[in-house]
C-alpha cells in the first residue's frame, strides 16, 4: 500500500449504498497528521454519511478507509477507540448524570481518571459544569462537554499524537462567540497534537477560518478536494449549493 508517513487517513474509491440509493460514490482523499479538512455540501449531499463511514458505521466501507497505514477492517474495536473520536448529533442522555461522569464514558472500560477528566473539561471551558446534571445544560454547553469527552477518550492530560477526530457539524447550535471558541479549539488541538481532523459544516466561512483543505460534496460525489483557497471559489460553491454565490467579506471574527 502506498502510504506516506504524514498521511494519517486515506480514503480510496469509497462508495456507500442504501438499498438502491447511492449515498456516496467514488470518494478518494487523504488527510495528513495535523491537518484540518472541512466537509461542505448542500443538505443531502452526503456529509453525514461520509462522517459515519469514517466512523466505521458501514462494514462494507471499512476496507476503503485506511487509518495510520492499516485499513479499518484491521483495527480492533478497542484499538481504534483509543485513536479515533467522533462527535455527531447525539440523542439526549436518558438518565440523570453529571457532566464529569458523562466525560468519563469516553473510556468506559477503565476506571475514571479524575485529573484527565478535569483537564479535558478545562480545555473546553466546561470545568464549572463538572457536577452539573448533563441534561440541564444548554445545547451549546452540552456540545462542549461532548468535545471534552472526545479529548478524554484520546488521552485527556496525556494526549496521544496522530489521532483522528471526526466532527459532524460541531457548530450547529452555537452562537458566534462559542463558534469561534470551538473552531479555534479544534484547530489548535489539530496542530499541537498532530491530529487529523475532519469536520462538516454548512458555513464556508467556518471552513475558511480553520481548515487547511476542503472537500465539496454534491449528490454523493466529490466536486472538489483542494487547499481551502482553491476549493472555495465562487464557481465551486455555486455548483455545490446549486445557486449563484458571490464572495464578500465575512462576519467571522478573527
Amino acid at each position, binding site marked *: 500500500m502506498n502510504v506516506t508517513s504524514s498521511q494519517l487517513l486515506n480514503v480510496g474509491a469509497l462508495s456507500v449504498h442504501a438499498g438502491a440509493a447511492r449515498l456516496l460514490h467514488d470518494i478518494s482523499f487523504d488527510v495528513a497528521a495535523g491537518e484540518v479538512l472541512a466537509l461542505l455540501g448542500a443538505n443531502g449531499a452526503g456529509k453525514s454519511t461520509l462522517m459515519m463511514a469514517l466512523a466505521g*458505521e458501514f462494514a462494507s466501507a471499512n476496507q476503503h478507509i485506511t487509518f495510520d497505514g492499516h485499513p479499518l477492517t484491521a483495527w480492533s474495536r478497542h484499538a481504534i477507540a483509543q485513536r479515533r473520536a467522533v462527535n455527531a448529533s447525539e440523542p439526549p442522555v436518558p438518565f*440523570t448524570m453529571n457532566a464529569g461522569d458523562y466525560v468519563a464514558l469516553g473510556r*468506559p472500560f477503565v476506571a475514571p481518571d479524575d485529573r484527565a477528566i478535569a483537564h479535558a473539561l478545562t480545555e473546553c471551558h466546561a470545568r464549572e459544569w463538572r457536577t452539573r446534571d448533563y441534561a440541564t445544560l444548554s445545547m451549546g454547553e452540552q456540545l462542549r462537554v461532548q468535545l471534552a469527552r472526545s479529548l478524554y477518550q484520546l488521552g485527556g492530560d496525556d494526549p496521544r499524537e496522530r489521532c483522528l477526530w471526526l466532527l459532524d457539524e460541531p457548530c450547529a447550535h452555537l452562537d458566534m462567540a462559542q463558534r469561534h471558541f470551538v473552531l479555534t479549539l479544534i484547530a489548535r488541538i489539530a496542530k499541537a497534537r498532530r491530529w487529523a481532523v475532519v469536520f462538516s459544516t454548512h458555513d464556508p466561512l467556518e471552513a475558511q477560518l480553520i481548515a487547511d483543505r476542503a472537500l465539496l460534496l454534491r449528490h454523493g460525489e466529490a466536486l472538489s478536494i483542494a487547499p481551502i483557497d482553491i476549493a472555495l471559489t465562487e464557481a465551486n460553491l455555486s455548483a455545490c449549493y446549486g445557486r449563484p454565490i458571490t464572495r464578500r467579506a465575512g462576519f467571522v471574527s478573527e
Partner: protein
Amino acid sequence: MTLHEQPLLRVALIAAALLAAAMVLSLVVGAYPLPFSKLLSGELNDAEWSVLTQLRAPRVLAACAGGAAFALAGAALQALFRNPLADPGLLGVPSAAGLGAAIALIVMGAGAALWLGALAGAALALAAMLFVVRRGAGPMAGGTVTLLLLGIAINAACAAGLALLTALASEGQLKTLSFWMLGSFAALDWPVVVAMLACTATGAVALLAHANALAALALGERAARTVGVDVQQLRFRVAVVTAAMVAIITAFCGGVGFVGLAAPHIARLTVGSSPRRTLPVAALIGAMLCVLADVVARSIAPPIELPVGAITAVLGVPLLVSLVTRKSQQP
C-alpha cells in the same frame, strides 16, 4: 441542578443491613410465629425447627432470589433500551411463561407441570427473540426497536392466548392460574430455591461483567460504538441473560410485577445512574422489597396468602412516587 450522589459502599451496606433485617422479620412472622429470642438462642422444638427450615427459610431465600433477579433484569434492560420505563416484562418473557403455565395447567394439571409449561413458554419467547436479533437487526438502526416490537407482539399474542384459555379453564384452574400469575414465594422446595439462587447469582455476575458497556450506552448507540462498545453483541448478551433469568424465576414464583421497574429507580436516586452502581444496589433493594411483600402477603389475613405481586405494587408505588417527587422538588 447539582447532583449529590451517595457513596456506593455506604448505600450498599445500608441496603444490605435493611435486607438482613427484613429477612429476620420474615423468618419470625407468620401463621405460626417463631419468637425472635428463640431464634437467637437456637432453642427450637421440632415443630418450630421444621417451620423454620422447611417453610420460612426457603421462601425468604426464594423472595431474595426473585426480587434480586427482577431488579437486575429491570436495571439492565433500562440501560440497554436507554429508557427508564423498561421492565422485565418488556421482552414478553413473563407473559409467555404465563401462557405456557396456563396450557400446562389445563392439559396436565397443577404442580411441576405448571413449572415445566412456564419454562417451555419462556424458552419459546427467548428462542423467537434470539432468532430475530440474529437474523433481523442490521448494524445501522432498529436493532433495539426490533427487539422492543417483538416483545410487544409476544405480549399481545400471549394475552390473546390466555383470554382464549380462560374460557376453557375450570373455576379451580382459573384460581390457581391467577394466583400464580400474580406471584408467590410459598411452597417452594429446597432444590427449587437453590436453583433460583444459582440462576440469580449467575445472572448478576453476567450482567455486572457488562456494566461498563451498558453505562456507555447512555451516550447513544452510535457514540457507544465509537468509544469501543460492540453494541450488537451487548444487546444480544443482555437480552439473553435477562430473559433466561426472568424465565426461570417466573416459572417458579410467577410474575411478581413492579419490582423490576421500581428497584432500579430507587437505586438510581441514591447512587446515580451508572449501571456499575445501579445493578448491585437495585438487586439488594429488589430482594428487600420482595421479602417485605412476602411478609405482608402472609400476615394480613392468615392463613390466607395474598398474591405477592399485588403487595409489591402496593409497597413499591408510594415509595417510588415519594422518592421521585422529592428529588424533582430540589432547586
